[in-house]
């Protein structure tokens, strides 16, 4: 079973994402912000990271940068959930080492579809 680290400071979003992914047969590790995610990433096997951008303590881009510095996560797909699909956001995502982005709000089915495209 593939493991997804789902990072969002909003409990409702976390629950929705987690429920959706679990239903699609993924194992989900939840984290409440970038810092929490980074700590959990050390102790869990993670196949994909799905992170919100705007969070306290450490944001999605920050988490991405930190994970990329870590040998274990050099190639792990990291998707950033963001409310803005601006060019700047994309450039920032790319610079941080993200694999891609998904614009919020999204439909649960759409989320799985995008993840399936990454994990094959």
């Amino acid at each position, binding site marked *: 079973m593939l493991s997804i680290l789902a990072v969002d400071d909003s*409990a409702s979003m976390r629950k929705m994402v987690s429920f959706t992914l679990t239903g699609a047969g993924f194992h989900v590790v939840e984290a409440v912000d970038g810092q929490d995610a980074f700590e959990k990433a050390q102790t869990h096997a993670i196949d994909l990271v799905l992170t919100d951008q705007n969070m306290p303590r450490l944001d999605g881009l920050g988490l991405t940068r930190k994970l990329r510095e870590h040998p274990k996560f050099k190639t792990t797909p*990291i998707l950033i959930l963001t409310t803005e699909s601006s060019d700047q956001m994309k*450039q920032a995502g790319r*610079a*941080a080492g993200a*694999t891609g982005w*998904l614009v919020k709000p999204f439909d649960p089915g759409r989320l*799985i579809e995008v993840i399936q495209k*990454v994990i094959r």
Partner: protein
Amino acid sequence: MGEMMNEGQALGGNIDLTQFYQIFFEEAGENLEQMEQMLLALDVEAADDEELNAIFRCAHSIKGGAATFGFADVAELTHQMESLLDKLRRHELQPTPPMVDVLLESSDALKILLARHQGRPVDPPETASLVERIYALAHGQAPAAAAPAPTPAPATAAPVAAPAPVVAAPVASPTPVAVRAPRADGQRQLEIHIGPMTNPAQADSIAELFRDITGLGQIEALPCDQEDHRVYQVITTSTDGDLMDLFTFHVNKELIRIVDLDAAAPAATAPAPAATQGTGIAGEGSDFGFFDDAPGTPGSPAPASVAAEPVEPSPVAAPAPAPVAVAKPAPAVTRPEPKAAAGAQASMESSTLRVSVSKVDQLINLVGELVITQAMLAQKSRELDVTHNQALLAGLADLDRNTRDLQEAVMSIRMIPMSVVFNRFPRMLRDLAGKLGKKVELITHGEATELDKGLIEKITDPLTHLIRNSCDHGIEMPADRLAKGKTEHGTITLSASHQGGSILIEVRDDGKGLSREKLLTKAREKGIDAPDSLTDAEVWSLIFAPGFSTAEEVTDVSGRGVGMDVVKKNIASLGGTVEIDSAEGYGMSVKVRLPLTLAIMDGMSVRVSDEVYILPLSSVIESFQINPADINTVAQGAQLVKVREEYMPVIELEKIFSVPRFEFNNTSPIMVVVESEGSRVALMVDELLGQQQVVIKNLETNYRKVPNVSGATILGDGKVALILDTSGLVRRSRH
């Protein structure tokens, strides 16, 4: 979209979003509350970055959830708030009091919107004007916001201060180039054709995008001879794909044609291929995308071959040195095997757990039953022979201890901090003081003091009233205060603390205080017997008389027909007391004392003939044996007992409750003095049985209201005992 949905459903099942509504509502409520507090605490002169970020995050989080779960009105309003807050946190705008005001009002409106979505019958709030006001504040005042072209990056500064409309003057055009030009020259001049549309105004939202999104570029409407079409000229550094992403939020993809005026290719660009080549995006839809050379990208070669690939960035990836390093993974690293830790991952740690109140109440009830059963066992066990039943008795002693610990632990679940109530007051006071033209500062102490949830809910209204009173009647106008040599700002101090088995909440202000003379005059006008000999405490308590108000005129703030008498009655119904203290010219203090919980109390059990009654231990002052001859009967059969040179009314419980007395041995020989609302009475009882914790069972819900009785409990022997309402008994003795 249709096929995407199908795939999603096949994979994830048809997901019903309504199941997340409740958690969203709770979360949104928390976010709003937090935002409100932070807005109130915000120093507009010197706003802290972290504060602004945190406020922004609250709006952002609500917006994200609302959009996801389909609450469009909430999403719309929070979107506007977020835009304004975004500009504040980026220092494109300076926070101003009007901004704080409109954000607070919006937060009120959001509460109503959310309440409506939860099915509560409330009138819809007026959000259109709020949206307009926020928009005006976000766009009308700041130089950076007014002109669409300049980016926030300080390097490119020189913001155009002119309050330019949507269409920017070409002068401002070069600014974005330096910041994030994907190519050497960066700027592209495009023509965008949109149509045919039944409602061409739809396209205006696209023009607005350029106004809203800093650095997106400039847009100018071009004349167009087709009624149902719009044509714009756009100068931007964004790729066609990015523009399409944005535009398709408002207009169908099929209706948009982007023509690159610089490129020799005059043909309409099909968005998808253009995007693929333009931004280094490996694959994308309108709402997602992958970077083509990013780690983990679908279709990117296996790590080893990635390392072998030339790692120079694609032409457009200029500002991204990081992925270069990233693209050289240690050869050994592949995707970690999931099986290793998969089983151990069940922990989704969270420090709190949301449980419905009814579950907690059920738990408390069960523990209450357990306490009673335990008491019953303890009582029975006293008859047992210690030598023969040592193990059993030891077990019962353990049971006793464990039951008490369990009870305490369970009760603590229902305890919530006073901050829940206190937090609403800064906002209320701010509005109120503003309305009255007064300056008031609220200081709170002991927000962490915990109180039973049921009590917290019931104490909110009385406290609100007390604070309104302090602000309205207590604190003077700024000029008056200065004239009296006081500070311009009045101070209201709200504090909570534990005192023994009760909680003490105090509302104190440094206003004009109560006037003894005025109160006495007023009381006499109202026909209340108020001799000059009354003590200060007695004079102050006159304001608890029904219909008594000390302000010369009734204002729309405090004078709402709810007087101090109601406050007092409400607090008394919670088993609490109110005390007033005041010094004229210096302020007043109202102390509210409440039991910690409504479910359990320390009681003293007394016997009257064959009946057992419980007295709240908190109201028992003393008890003593008397000689029946010390009781004097005065007019109308009232009885008084002389205690240390003071006469005290006597209440014969057996008469009040018509207790049958079979063995005729005159009157009860023991007096228990109880105090309530500053007065004392002596209750005549036959025997003091002891002190114990009792589980309070509500009589009203199980039977009906009984005078002089506040509840009932089940004793260790299984008998029911009534808990006496001491304040009712004291009041009775007065009449």
